[in-house]
């Protein structure tokens, strides 16, 4: 590749690429994001390549192995251009048919189209599919057009034109002002205005200045930053370069967690390609602007996503937060001004520079502009990554995009913001989702995790899960966070195992308020949120555990009781044979009985009892109903009667 030595040269390079593509009739985008990758989308892509070769169609049809398409639940996915036909759950054996019917004849393969359960209709195109209808994929949309390992794809799709625009027609202050005007807020947690942060670093004394990408996304269930970095690494690099230009920095870091293997493979490729084209390095596009970037792999600590901890790690020290009354924007890496934003924030920057701050401000709410990518997971029908304008309601996300609760269970709560966030109950379903609204109800945007919970979820158990996560992931440096979490974990364990006392709830609240006041860093200050928000909205569930020793959602093992309904048991023996502790007695046509002393509450009997009998029940708490005398005959059912 030849170095592009001017803005005009970049433009010509792009035009050349577009001219080449003109001869290509069709292209197939196969998702190789993490989700589809796990579904073996690689084999699907291989089969497509073989099939195209076998039919001598090479050069006329392009196959792109792209980043995430969002609808992870239905992977592997293949999207066919220019028609934009979308196929789901594609297996290698489906490929010849797709090539024959869709690529060659322009016909649809019905069974691979999305089936809208509500209307019974098959949807061929993206904008007919409910999961995509409300979405506005401004950050994510290019994923369909780009192979993450091809800078040509990115440039053909308009990539690096924002950088070219900034370098040729804007001053650093112009870029800064544009970002400030756009109202872009940090997508990594607190939602601090990005432009103001940039300005602080720009004005801070000290040289060099650093710009950093925070790709230490670690919230359970969240993977939007991962998918951007894997699928469109150049968009993050271009954003970072624009930030560097505005701030006056020549050196950047990408702090990426070691666990993000595809991102770690794709990023160096992207950086190398950008260097070869002269888009990174000295005198970028023939201008005075020089910039270089280094990848720093995280060593696997959640707390390293905290800004001061991340910067300690870059310096080569243990990734632990430091007490700071001077912000890292002023004194960060090696005490130099350092601007840190997360992946999604950086990926928004080229879009704002290209389309203008007015365009960005036209999306979203008064206080939160633009779109936000959420990872919609948990008990919804359709899980995946969804990008919506800020201000879309929780109900729209859960019911319209997510298709509602799986198995038609009842909605209970949605957990947002990861371990620092909180649970939002049903009464806030119509809450418009933005930074400020979520904080007001005791949760937070965080990086955009959204875990949907149904009536079978125990909120005390959820609080315990996040508390345990944080107890392990806190650095353990300061007393409030370390010892506070240790005691919260113990109290929650006691409550879920039937040893809770009435005073425990007040102690939890007192500990939570104390940790917020006294902890050293944001992790500790927000660590009590899962407990406090569930205590606030689901106190009755806590009380049922403490007072009645019952778990209303029938989750907490130590409390619940497995019981065989003598009127429903048919004496088939399935549960008896599979019980690992031989706690079930009975015989053919004899009512089965659970010995509560021996029962370890593994739930096997509940799972294996044939659905036509459904004789095993989970009760929220003891004591179990008195067993029928051993030897009681089962209730004879009339022929054909199932229940």
């Amino acid at each position, binding site marked *: 590749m030849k170095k592009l030595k001017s803005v005009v040269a970049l433009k010509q390079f792009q035009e050349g690429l577009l001219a080449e593509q003109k001869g290509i009739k069709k292209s197939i985008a196969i998702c190789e994001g993490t989700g589809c990758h796990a579904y073996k989308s690689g084999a699907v892509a291989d089969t497509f390549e073989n099939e195209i070769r076998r039919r001598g169609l090479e050069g006329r049809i392009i196959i792109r192995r792209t980043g995430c398409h969002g609808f992870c639940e239905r992977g592997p996915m293949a999207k066919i251009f220019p028609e934009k036909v979308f196929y789901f759950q594609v297996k290698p054996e489906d490929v010849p048919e797709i090539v024959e019917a869709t690529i060659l004849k322009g016909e649809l393969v019905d069974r691979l189209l999305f089936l809208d359960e509500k209307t019974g209709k098959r949807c061929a195109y993206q904008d007919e599919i409910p999961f995509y209808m409300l979405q506005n994929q401004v950050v994510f949309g290019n994923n369909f057009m780009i192979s993450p390992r091809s800078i040509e794809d990115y440039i053909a799709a308009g990539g690096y034109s924002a950088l070219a625009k900034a370098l040729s027609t804007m001053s650093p202050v112009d870029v800064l002002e544009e970002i400030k005007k756009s109202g872009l807020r940090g997508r990594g947690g607190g939602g601090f205005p990005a432009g103001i942060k940039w300005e602080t670093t720009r004005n801070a004394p000290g040289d060099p200045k650093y710009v950093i990408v925070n790709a230490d996304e670690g919230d359970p269930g969240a993977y939007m930053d991962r998918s951007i970095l894997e699928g469109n690494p150049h968009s993050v690099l271009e954003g970072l370069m624009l930030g560097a230009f505005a701030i006056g920095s020549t050196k950047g870091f990408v702090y990426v967690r070691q666990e993000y293997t595809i991102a770690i493979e794709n990023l160096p490729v992207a950086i190398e390609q950008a260097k070869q084209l002269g888009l990174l390095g000295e005198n970028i596009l023939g201008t005075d602007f020089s910039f270089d970037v280094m990848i720093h792999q995280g060593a696997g600590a959640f707390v390293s996503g905290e800004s001061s901890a991340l910067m300690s790690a870059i310096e080569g020290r243990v990734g632990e937060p430091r007490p700071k009354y001077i912000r890292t924007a002023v004194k960060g890496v090696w005490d130099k001004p350092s601007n840190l934003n997360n992946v999604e924030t950086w990926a928004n920057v080229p879009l704002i520079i290209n389309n203008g701050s007015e365009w960005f401000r036209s999306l979203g709410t008064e206080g939160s502009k633009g779109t936000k990518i959420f990872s919609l997971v948990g008990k919804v029908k359709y899980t995946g990554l969804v990008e919506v304008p800020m201000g879309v309601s929780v109900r729209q996300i859960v019911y319209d995009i997510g298709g509602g609760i799986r198995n038609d269970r009842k909605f209970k709560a949605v957990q947002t913001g990861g371990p620092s966030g909180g649970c939002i109950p049903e009464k806030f379903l119509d809450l418009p989702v933005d930074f400020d609204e979520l904080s007001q109800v005791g949760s937070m945007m965080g990086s955009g995790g959204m875990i949907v919970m149904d009536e079978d979820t125990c909120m005390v158990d959820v609080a315990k899960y996040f508390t345990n996560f944080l107890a392990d992931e806190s650095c*353990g440096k300061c007393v409030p966070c370390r010892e506070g979490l240790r005691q919260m974990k113990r109290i929650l364990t006691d409550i879920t195992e039937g040893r809770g006392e009435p005073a425990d709830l007040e102690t939890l609240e007192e500990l939570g308020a104390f940790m917020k006041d006294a902890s050293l860093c944001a992790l500790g200050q927000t660590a009590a949120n899962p407990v406090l928000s569930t205590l606030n909205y689901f106190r009755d569930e806590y009380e049922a555990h403490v007072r009645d020793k019952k778990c209303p959602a029938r989750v907490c093992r130590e409390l619940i009781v497995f019981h065989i309904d003598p009127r429903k048991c048919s004496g088939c023996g399935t549960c008896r044979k599979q019980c690992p502790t031989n706690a079930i007695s009975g015989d053919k046509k004899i009512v089965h009985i659970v010995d509560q002393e021996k029962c370890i509450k593994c739930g096997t009997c509940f799972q294996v009892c044939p659905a036509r009998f459904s004789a095993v029940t989970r009760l929220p708490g003891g004591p179990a109903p008195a067993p029928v005398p051993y030897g009681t005959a089962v209730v004879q059912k009339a022929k054909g009667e199932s229940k």
Partner: protein
Amino acid sequence: MNTVTLKINGREVTAKEGTSVLEAARSLGIDIPTLCAYEELESAGVCRLCMVEITRGKKTRLVTSCVYPVENGLEVQTETDRVNNIRRMLIELLLPVAPSGPINALAKRFGVEKSRFKLEGPKEAPTNCSLCGLCVRYCEQVKGEHAVGFLGRGVNRKVALMADKGDECAFCRQCYSLCNSGRFVEMAEVFPDQP
């Protein structure tokens, strides 16, 4: 060097720019409790006992006095209810972990009669270590060694002696006198013959 003037508990004090509120308070003889502060070492801000309330203009907030630098016109209160409640909770939380000596003395001073908290589980036993890190930081910053360090994170964090530094460590023992929580005192009792 520039100096700044501030008020601590209503008393005016002048201090060099860059000193901490804790140092300024101690120069007035005001006793702010600490576990992790030691004059030869950089402040770590981990025990949180030194938290105080500061007022600037109309805003009052909690800060960690060992790392918060003095400022002109700052008003500091070191013994408010809010501050002392935090200290009592810290002591309550530390008591089950390090029930001996210094934490007990703090408990008496702040009127903590009994802790609501306890340790449970096989891995959870009193260590008599409050994890203040004085030994670790002394070894690193004063001795230039790393013979004492932290292992693990979160609730599994602990202080450990690094095996390959044993030769140096057995004879130095300078960190013993710094130990707040009796951990090294205990060790000295176990190995009385060592120098």
